[in-house]
């Protein structure tokens, strides 16, 4: 989008792959709006002058719009509005469909802060660090009330609702820092529930991953960053503790349930013949409501973990499965503690 158009519309800089398309549509729609309003208004003013009353108590002959004109008008406007809808809905559906292979960040919102958990186990408050030119998927939930994750420069927004994970994604186009706002009213400090997305170049991002210093371009925001253990290895502990490994193997052997090796991101065939990609949504759903989508060939014996696993545990389990998604199904993979701990391996010791 032209710089002067951005300035004319008072839009923030375009910093994601969504922004250009959205701004283009924005410009078209707003131009139509202004022209439409002006046209109708000026037409009315013209007729006001043209047909001003010349004699008091003047009478006028009846006249009507013909039905044909009305229908033409309706058809024209309807096609215009439907065109808006088609373009808008296409862009919207694109925004709602995270691409495969996106870096996943877990977002937890609470009054009045944002907490980001990264696959490498790092966590941060209010500052979300992401690489440029790579899609980033956010898996978001709230601890208390509804919040809304809004980055104006990305033209991207998603409500964050307690009790559910909602996903959103974006791909930042240029390094820099971009404000995060909470857009859904959430209480007294709603306006202070801000933060920033710190978009880093590939080199800086690599340095950040290693915990080395880097130059944050255009740093305007400061945030607290805290370190944590690796999420995927935490997930392995959870899997052992919660008895998952009694039925699911992590060495590629099918057991009572499907193996987790290579499961994440693969397409599994369900009992009813349909198939589904084993992504975060499918995996979390299978934990909460195991009977809903049974993989073909397995018995519906898994109990629900609804109310048993907390969101960190779910997140770490998913990350764990992700970490072994690319492993081959031979037992040669070098994961520590491949076999379940003694005592947790038999079905009799389910918690």
């Amino acid at each position: 989008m032209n710089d002067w158009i951005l300035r004319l519309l008072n839009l923030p800089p375009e910093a994601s792959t969504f922004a250009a398309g959205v701004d283009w549509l924005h410009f078209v729609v707003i131009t139509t709006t202004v022209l439409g309003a002006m046209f109708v208004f000026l037409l009315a003013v013209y007729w006001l002058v043209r047909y001003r009353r010349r004699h008091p108590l003047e009478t006028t002959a009846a006249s009507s719009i013909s039905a044909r004109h009305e229908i033409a008008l309706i058809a024209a406007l309807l096609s215009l509005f439907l065109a808006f809808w088609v373009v808008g809905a296409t862009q919207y559906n694109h925004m709602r469909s995270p691409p495969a292979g996106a870096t996943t960040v877990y977002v937890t919102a609470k009054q009045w802060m944002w907490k980001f958990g990264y696959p490498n186990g790092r966590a941060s408050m209010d500052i979300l660090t992401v690489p440029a030119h790579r899609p980033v998927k956010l898996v978001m939930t709230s601890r208390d009330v509804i919040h809304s994750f809004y980055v104006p420069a990305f033209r991207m927004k998603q409500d964050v609702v307690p009790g559910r994970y909602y996903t959103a994604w974006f791909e930042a186009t240029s390094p820099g820092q971009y404000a995060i706002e909470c857009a859904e009213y959430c209480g007294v400090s709603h306006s202070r529930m801000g933060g920033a997305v710190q978009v880093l170049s590939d080199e800086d991002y690599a340095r950040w991953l290693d915990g080395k210093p880097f130059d944050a371009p255009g740093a305007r925001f400061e945030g607290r960053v805290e370190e944590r253990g690796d999420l995927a290895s935490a997930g392995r502990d959870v899997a052992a503790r919660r008895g998952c490994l009694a039925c699911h193997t992590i060495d590629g052997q099918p057991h009572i349930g499907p193996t987790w090796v290579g499961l994440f991101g693969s397409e599994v065939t369900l009992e009813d013949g349909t198939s589904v990609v084993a992504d975060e949504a499918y995996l979390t759903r299978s934990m909460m409501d195991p009977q809903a989508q049974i993989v073909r060939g397995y018995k519906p014996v898994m109990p629900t973990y609804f109310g048993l696993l907390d969101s960190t545990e779910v997140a770490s389990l998913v990350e764990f499965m992700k970490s072994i998604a690319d492993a081959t199904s031979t037992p040669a993979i070098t994961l520590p503690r491949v076999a379940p701990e003694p005592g947790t391996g038999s079905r009799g010791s389910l918690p």
Partner: protein
Amino acid sequence: MSGAGTTAAAKEAAGGKTTGAKETSAVSLASTLVALLALAGLSLALRYAHLGAFGLPVAMIIAAAKAVLVAVFFMEILVERVTVRLAMSTGIVLVGILLALIAADILTRETPPLSNPPGTEPRDRG
């Protein structure tokens, strides 16, 4: 709502029926009650037939049938004026819109409920 431009309330009124002149039959009322009780018995019997997932739709269909019986024979909706039926059907259509568009959301949503919704841990109000 008649399409004829000259139709006025007075004419509409003339076409309507007055309750005082209307004749209902005690037999039809009694047979309606019998039918209602029979349908209720059917619903009850099907409870023990273990229809599983079909239980709910079947029960709702039976309930709708009973509602129609009550509306037609007890509430006399068919002898009421057109506007009455229009009012009622508008209400029912809107209930349909409400349920359908909410169903369109929850049945196509991809996000399962969370395992540890807030509130499972101590929370302070406000």
